[in-house]
């Protein structure tokens, strides 16, 4: 089949309603930010008339949900739970956790999944945008940490879907920030994006050249953020609550002492966390075979980079003064808005991203066979052939994992499915080819074929779709409730089909 070509800069504009608006959403651990492109420039929106930072919190008061305000019953830092299983150690940080098969948090009379909580936040953003601009929100680009795994990416998309937002694409936060810098300040060359936020740390090396934003390597830690420093301040300085710890940290970024606590007190506590980010940064440089001296500059992103300690240490590490021309808390949303605009109306800009983590399969003895190594350019595809280890073996379990470690038990399990009905052959004769395909947003599809007999089987699985059927029907129900147009319904149907494939092959 011939490819239909659209000239760059001429993406089919007519397919989207001219009345709607496309936005970029930075769905952050502590705050969310939404931005829109007007006259070619990105602007953040102040949807609640309280400043552009929307606290990523969901409260319940007087039988109603409230986003962005803290009451007695409030859920926060929900991003840390996206795509996680209840046995994940991170869950212990949440006092509202309800025991069960899936992660659920108690809020008022409800037991909400992280996807549902995030969808409330996104719905608030959608309604706020529509109220502020007076037009429907047509579609959005949502940012995720570069280091987000498959499960967390899918969960983010599901949350958007529940909120009635069509996702044009997920993009990685550091890549979005680079886009904003590249397009707004015109920088070119190889840059490091050091993104230290409330919940996560990401670092990416990008080459910016002639409108191409090529990610060379990326690394990070999903559980390393300002939140963790606040928890340490709380326990080490005997502060009464987390909110106070945050405030103290922020005040001490601008003055030397507050209420008997000095800047050096908190710097001593924060220092090991900052050291850890620099260790990760060092590893990313090694991965890209570059040194900090070889790059043009370092761009600071995320609220934590306001801390003088962070700026100082980053400057020492790179041997150059970091850039913060753009507000570190706005850059990601601005980049996402530019991306949304480009995807909808066409653009000369191109993002070439990579897989943050290796994708592989379980083989004999609990070992991992890597199929797509980390830092592979997206979209990517790779295949591997496997065979049976017993005579007449009729089936084969295909267990898909993500991570860098050698053993399956140390990697994240994305899902398993069974290839059934293999022809009865002696051990080592059957030929099963497993294909991995990762699209430009980092979402994986796995297929398997049995080749020897010509009776090939084909199974597709979207391993990280964690929708169970109850949740699925609820999502469909909700979507009809919020349902606005056919495009969205079609989208839901596609998602439903995808997740049905998963349930079919659950073993």
């Amino acid at each position, binding site marked *: 089949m011939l490819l239909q070509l659209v000239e760059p800069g001429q993406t089919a504009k007519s397919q*989207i309603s001219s009345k709607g608006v496309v936005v970029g959403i930075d769905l952050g651990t502590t705050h969310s930010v939404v931005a829109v492109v007007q006259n070619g420039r990105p602007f953040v929106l102040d949807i609640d008339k309280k400043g552009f930072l929307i606290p990523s919190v969901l409260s319940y008061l007087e039988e109603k949900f409230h986003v962005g305000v803290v009451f007695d019953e409030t859920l926060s830092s929900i991003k840390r739970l996206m795509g996680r299983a209840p046995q994940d150690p991170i869950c212990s940080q949440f006092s509202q956790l309800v025991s069960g098969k899936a992660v659920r948090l108690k809020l008022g009379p409800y037991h909400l999944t992280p996807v549902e909580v995030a969808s409330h936040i996104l719905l608030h953003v959608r309604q706020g945008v529509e109220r502020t601009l007076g037009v429907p929100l047509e579609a959005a680009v949502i940012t995720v940490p570069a280091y987000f795994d498959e499960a967390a990416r899918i969960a983010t998309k599901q949350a958007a879907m529940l909120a009635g937002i069509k996702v044009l694409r997920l993009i990685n936060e550091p890549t979005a920030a680079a886009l904003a810098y590249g397009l707004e300040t015109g920088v070119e060359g190889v840059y490091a994006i050091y993104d230290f936020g409330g919940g996560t740390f990401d670092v990416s090396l990008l080459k910016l050249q002639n409108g191409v934003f090529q990610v060379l390597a990326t690394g990070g830690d999903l559980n390393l953020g300002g939140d963790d420093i606040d928890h340490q301040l709380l326990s080490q300085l005997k502060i009464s609550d987390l909110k106070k710890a945050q405030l103290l940290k922020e005040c001490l970024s601008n003055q030397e002492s507050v209420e008997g606590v000095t800047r050096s007190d908190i710097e001593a506590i924060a220092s090991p966390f900052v050291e850890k980010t620099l260790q990760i940064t060092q590893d990313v440089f090694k991965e890209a075979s570059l040194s900090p001296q070889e790059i043009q500059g370092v761009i600071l992103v995320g609220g934590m980079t306001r801390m003088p300690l962070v700026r100082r240490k980053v400057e020492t590490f790179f041997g150059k003064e970091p850039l913060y021309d753009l507000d570190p808390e706005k850059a990601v949303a601005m980049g996402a808005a530019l991306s949304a605009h480009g995807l909808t109306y066409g653009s*000369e800009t*191109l993002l070439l991203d990579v897989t943050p983590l290796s994708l592989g399969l379980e083989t004999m003895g609990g070992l991992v066979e890597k199929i797509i190594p980390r830092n592979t350019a997206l979209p990517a595809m790779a295949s591997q052939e496997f065979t049976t280890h017993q005579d007449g073996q009729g089936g084969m379990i295909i267990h898909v994992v993500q991570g860098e470690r050698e053993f399956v038990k140390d990697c994240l399990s994305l899902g398993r499915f069974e290839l059934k009905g293999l022809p009865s052959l002696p051990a080592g004769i059957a030929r099963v080819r497993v294909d991995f395909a990762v699209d*430009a947003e980092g979402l994986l599809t796995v297929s398997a074929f049995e080749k020897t007999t010509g009776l090939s089987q084909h199974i597709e699985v979207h391993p990280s779709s964690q929708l169970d059927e109850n949740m699925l029907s609820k999502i469909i129900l909700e979507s009809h409730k919020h349902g606005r147009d056919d495009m969205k319904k079609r989208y839901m149907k596609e998602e439903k089909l995808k997740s049905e494939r998963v349930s079919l092959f659950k073993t």
Partner: protein
Amino acid sequence: MFDPFDVFGFEKGFFLDLKVLEKCYFEEQKKFHPDRFALAEMNTKADAIRKSTMLNQAYSLLKDPLERAAFLLKEKGFELMTHDSFFLSQVMEWSERQDRGEDITRELQVESERLFKSLEDAFVVQDYASAREALYRLTYVRKMMKAMFLGPG
């Protein structure tokens, strides 16, 4: 068989200007990357993903001289070497000295440069048997260097 040279319309050969390769890669991706088809029909999108994936695979193979050499040798019917008994004694000597705490970084660097030169020379005179041997050794030396560079863990 997947031919990375064909993807970019390059003539097959070991010598390749990386700047030209990168320029072509960026230009082609600007045309075919799935982001160019964000609002297109599923079929069009799927074609774009296929084409863009192929560009990534071809670029990643061509930009690495070792992979480029391996492809060309296979193409000429020279399967890659899996052992080299003469070279093995050299490797054993290196690892023994490493175990004694000796720093062999510089020596490996020199060896790597020397082997790369012989790989190039072999391709110039189309001596594929020598190219095959140089490639095997060079791959090994580079692996050792990478392991030392990345350090334990």
